[in-house]
């Protein structure tokens, strides 16, 4: 299946064409180029997926990993080398489908959303760059290729968040996103260094083969600061994953990243890039499970905490994109938890399947939510809930698709979110009851804040709109409808037949007891939201005032940003950099200059000896002669 490499290369080519020709191309041509390129990729990935899952992939009852294409890129030493290749296995093929589909929808949608924007060509160039990097990331055959594309998605995310580069908020957000993820990537890099040093390879195939026996044996024994080598390596890898996937406490960049254009948020900060961390953990899953099971526990608890934490904050946000951002954090944390509670093989690996399933369904309904929000923002020219209300009459398509997405994320059958969430809850239930309860609570809160959002946008009193709000143009609502269809249908896919922790298909039914509980909790959340926000009332205010301190903290996102700001501004700038710069200018440079001025002073001091008076010279000379004579005489 060597053609699959073109899935990646075509967007790259489009990036070069649009990027280099941006001044020559008309905006329309740039958009068409980008979209066409991505359509080619999408079609190719559908063919790949079809052939992989139904023809070539399944061998003797196991989905094998196929290296469809590979080339040696850089050789470090006799053992270590980076290859660039295309690895096809169930999760990478699934990701190819997700990325190309969402990306194509975003490309089409952006025609309408970005119409008339300055830098339209640049926008499409960056979208192509992002698609290229993200596709390269998921098909990586080795951990270093993944790191390379990992960095590239970070950079394209930086460029796209900062698309409106004259807006100070966008600049700050893009910088923050890049630096925070870069900091996390440092962990990733060091993790790679440790793993490659111990095992002598970057290759996923070798690392994960035979229940990661290579890693288990090679990393055994060593320890540093009381933790084993494997624990260090896998924790550091998880740090990278947590940065990209916005896990607490590295989540701070994601809400700010909403400063970018909304379709970008849909693509990068909801559907694809932010799940890269989950994908990384899934990719390295055998290593986590067999070499460092304690890290898996860490992942579970970090995930569970993040899910709850982000869900609580989401209730208090008033910017609709930020609500969605926190909901994304919370949902990704769900996926992380699912991986954390998973075992290996068959039903023990339910969490693994569930995590990937949720990744799959979430990509579509979250992209739909963002695109729907984009179409609302397009209509009312504001992100704030205050500026919205009663829009259902003006924007029927957006309204209905948004509702489908909300039902899906809330986990109401028969929409896709229900199925994947049920599997996650069931996996958590069989593994850890505390985590299960937390997740159940989060499911309720999710339903609540999503419907709060829904009611405040589409119901309630109408606002004074400057211009009459209008339904989005067809180029924008076609993607909405398509994604809404996917949100309805993808849940019915028997996912465990395709993706499992040990690549062996198995049957996974719905656990109706847990499903019933999940639905019940979600319904309670929806009912509460309906009671509070369906009509304008002061009830929410009154409830909020009871826990004023807590609610204010939630509104300020529990001051995590301030804490980070303190670390960066106060500690790094004031306490490290400024003293270093001062030290360099005054101490080191002062020492060197001091050497210069010291020499000058010394010569100033001794030049008095050269007085110009012959008699002095003669006197010194005579005394010198006498001293020498005496010396000679004595010795």
């Amino acid at each position, binding site marked *: 299946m060597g053609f699959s490499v073109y899935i990646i290369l075509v967007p790259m080519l489009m990036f070069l064409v649009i990027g280099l020709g941006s001044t020559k191309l008309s905006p329309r041509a740039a958009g068409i180029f980008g979209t066409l390129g991505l359509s080619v990729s999408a079609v190719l990935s559908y063919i790949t997926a079809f052939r992989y899952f139904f023809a070539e992939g399944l061998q003797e009852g196991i989905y094998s990993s196929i290296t469809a294409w590979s080339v040696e890129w850089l050789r470090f030493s006799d053992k270590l080398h980076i290859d660039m290749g295309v690895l096809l296995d169930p999760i990478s093929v699934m990701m190819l489908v997700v990325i190309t589909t969402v990306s194509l929808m975003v490309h089409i949608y952006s025609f309408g959303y970005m119409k008339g924007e300055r830098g339209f060509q640049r926008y499409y160039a960056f979208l192509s760059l992002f698609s290229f990097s993200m596709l390269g990331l998921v098909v990586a055959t080795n951990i270093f290729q993944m790191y390379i594309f990992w960095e590239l998605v970070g950079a394209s995310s930086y460029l796209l968040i900062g698309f409106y580069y004259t807006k100070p908020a966008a600049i700050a957000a893009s910088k923050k996103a890049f630096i925070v993820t870069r900091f996390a990537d440092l962990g990733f890099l060091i993790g790679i260094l440790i793993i490659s040093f111990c095992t002598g390879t970057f290759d996923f195939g070798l690392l994960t083969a035979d229940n990661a026996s290579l890693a288990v044996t090679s990393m055994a024994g060593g320890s540093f600061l009381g933790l084993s080598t494997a624990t260090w390596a896998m924790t550091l890898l998880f740090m990278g994953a947590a940065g990209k996937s916005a896990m607490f406490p590295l989540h701070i960049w994601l809400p700010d990243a909403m400063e970018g254009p909304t379709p970008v948020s849909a693509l990068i900060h909801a559907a694809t890039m932010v799940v890269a961390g989950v994908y990384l953990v899934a990719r390295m899953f055998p290593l986590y499970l067999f070499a460092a099971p304690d890290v898996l526990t860490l992942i579970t608890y970090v995930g569970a905490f993040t899910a709850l934490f982000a869900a609580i904050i989401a209730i208090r946000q008033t910017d609709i994109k930020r609500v969605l951002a926190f909901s994304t954090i919370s949902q990704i944390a769900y996926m992380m938890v699912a991986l954390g509670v998973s075992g290996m093989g068959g039903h023990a690996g339910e969490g693994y399947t569930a995590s990937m399933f949720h990744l799959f369904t979430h990509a579509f309904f979250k992209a739909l939510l963002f695109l729907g929000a984009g179409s609302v923002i397009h209509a009312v020219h504001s992100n704030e809930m205050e500026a919205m209300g009663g829009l259902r009459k003006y924007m029927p398509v957006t309204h209905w698709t948004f509702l489908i997405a909300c039902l899906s994320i809330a986990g109401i059958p028969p929409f896709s979110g229900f199925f994947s969430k049920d599997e996650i809850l069931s996996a958590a239930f069989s593994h850890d009851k505390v985590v299960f309860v937390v997740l159940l609570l989060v499911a309720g809160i999710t339903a609540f804040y999503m419907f709060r959002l829904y009611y405040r946008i589409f119901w309630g009193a109408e606002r004074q709109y400057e211009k009459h709000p209008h339904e989005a143009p067809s180029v924008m609502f076609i993607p909405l409808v398509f994604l809404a269809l996917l949100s309805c249908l993808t849940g019915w896919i028997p996912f465990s037949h395709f993706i499992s922790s040990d690549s062996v298909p198995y049957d996974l039914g719905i656990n109706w007891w847990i499903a019933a509980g999940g639905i019940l909790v979600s319904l309670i959340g929806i009912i509460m939201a309906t009671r509070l926000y369906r009509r304008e009332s002061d009830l929410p205010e009154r409830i909020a005032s009871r826990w004023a301190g807590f609610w204010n903290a939630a509104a300020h996102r529990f001051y995590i940003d301030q804490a980070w700001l303190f670390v960066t501004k106060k500690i790094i700038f004031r306490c490290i950099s400024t003293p270093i710069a001062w030290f360099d200018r005054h101490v080191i440079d002062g020492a060197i200059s001091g050497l210069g001025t010291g020499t000058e002073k010394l010569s100033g001091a001794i030049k008095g000896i050269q*007085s*110009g*008076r*012959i*008699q002095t010279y*003669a006197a010194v000379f*005579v005394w010198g002669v006498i001293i020498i004579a005496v010396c000679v005489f004595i010795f």
Partner: protein
Amino acid sequence: MISMEHYLVVSSIMFFVGIYGFIARKNLLAVLISIELILNSVEINFSVFNRYLYPEHMEGVFFSLFGIAISAAETAVAIAIMINVYRLASNIDIRHIDKLKY
């Protein structure tokens, strides 16, 4: 009998008097006289060594004559310089002549 040592003592005294004068006197003319004293003490030495140690040779005496001629020329130059210094500074104090420095 006047031995060589007597001559040498005299010339040594002349030499050190000359050195002292050269270092201590502030008047250029006195400095010049001191230089002459040094030169003459040396010439005495030449002649004395010649006369006492190698009476059959004449080089020492010739050298003294040569030295006298040189010192005469030197005195002429020195006095010319002194006249110029006097024209510049209206005196011939050696402390004024310290431009030769750094």
